[in-house]
């Protein structure tokens, strides 16, 4: 599987110069102190990793990959591991920039930065967990369309529920959530990721190239 992860990183490496340029620009803008910017590198890491699916599809890589000395499921697992590794790099890079900016502006807040980055990372992982089975099932283009349709329908459904159903949450639940929400979100995300991988793996094992 190491070879497969390396393949995706070598594909991404082609854009290294642009990324470096972007990070410099990002660091300069971050000096202004806009917290929203901390989301950007993680988002870019997601977009960059998505390009590996496009390259694979365009070059019919999967047909060749399954003839190599590997298990079919490794091809799927490598996508998850690779994108998580890239996300970690992006988050560490962002943390470093945030630290440097904080030092320059003398207002570095470790706890706030950490929570911001974990939130960003979690959100990206959640989106990837939804996207990857769609990419494997329908291909990159249709998968993206599927995601947009999903977001639209999901937002519509949530909006409808919030407008038409009166929710009364007991005080004890609110207290519980305030205390344990990050942990619950972490565990929930982990479950979603595992489910996503299992679904993607099953689709891939049945897929023909």
């Amino acid at each position: 599987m190491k070879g497969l992860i390396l393949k995706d990183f070598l594909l991404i490496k082609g854009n290294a110069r642009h990324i470096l340029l972007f990070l410099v620009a990002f660091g300069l803008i971050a000096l202004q102190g806009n917290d929203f910017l901390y989301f950007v590198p993680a988002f870019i890491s997601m977009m960059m990793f998505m390009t590996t699916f496009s390259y694979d599809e365009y070059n019919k890589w999967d047909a060749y990959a399954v003839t190599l000395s590997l298990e079919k499921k490794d091809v799927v697992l490598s996508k998850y591991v690779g994108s998580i590794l890239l996300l970690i790099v992006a988050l560490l890079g962002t943390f470093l920039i945030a630290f440097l900016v904080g030092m320059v502006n003398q207002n570095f807040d470790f706890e706030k930065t950490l929570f911001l980055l974990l939130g960003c990372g979690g959100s990206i992982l959640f989106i990837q967990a939804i996207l990857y089975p769609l990419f494997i099932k329908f291909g990159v283009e249709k998968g993206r369309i599927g995601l947009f349709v999903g977001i639209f329908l999901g937002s519509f459904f949530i909006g409808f529920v919030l407008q038409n159903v009166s929710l009364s949450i007991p005080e004890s639940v609110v207290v519980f959530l305030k205390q344990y929400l990050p942990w619950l979100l972490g565990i929930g995300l982990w479950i979603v990721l595992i489910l996503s991988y299992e679904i993607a793996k099953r689709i891939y094992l049945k897929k023909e190239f």
Partner: protein
Amino acid sequence: MKNILEVKNLQKSYSDFVLGPISTHFPGGVIIGLIGENGAGKTTFIKSLLGIIQSEGSIQIFGRDMNEEAREIKEDIGVVLDNSFFPEVMTANDIHKIMKNLYKNWDPGLFFSYLDKFSLPRNKAIKTLSKGMRKKLEIATSLAHHPKFLILDEPTSGLDPIVRKEVLDLFLDFIQDEEHTILLSTHITSDLEHIADYILFLDKGHIVLEETRDDIMDNYGILKCGIEEFSSIKKEDVIRFLKNKYGYEILVKNSQVLKKKYPKMILDKITLEELMVLLVKGCVL
């Protein structure tokens, strides 16, 4: 001799095409030429063998079941597919870095020696290479982990005669080791006349001929005659025939016997291409 490839009741069904059921086996140390017209099922057969598509039936390679030991078997197989390879922004160096992490027996020295032999650049993206160079890179990649069995889908299609000769010579080098075997699909049947030991001929998803090349070349022939002579030929001697403006071309077997039986007729040696055309397009008497 131990079979290197054994296929039993291999079948793959699509809405408009069915491959098989195919049952066949081949010994090691040979070149198997897989021929047939476009859409005959050559690529489907190869994809089934390699697990690229799912099919029914049993496939054993090196005496081991592909359904159970695919990864171990694939360690000793080199593959060139018609239209899929590494992403074309990658270079030969990138391929080396990836493959050395996938194959236990990846041999960098051998890989780079093939690159040098074929004058292939190490740091140029695949997309910048000509079709011939790209194909040579695919072949070099398939050989650099010391495979025992090469499975090649149209490895010479689109190549000019000089590159084709280079590639075929490479296959002949490979087969010098008695343990090595090649399964090679191609439209260019003349290539196989020089190198193949066995011919597996598919038509409409079924095997229509499966013999050694020598048996085909020695036994089959084309009997050429006019309309009047044609009516004197016995039905059992005619495998297929085609009528053209000069007369008849008749595919026959046991050509030495028939030469004596029909001494006034011309009996030519057959090429694989003629055999293919007559078997696919010819009429049954």
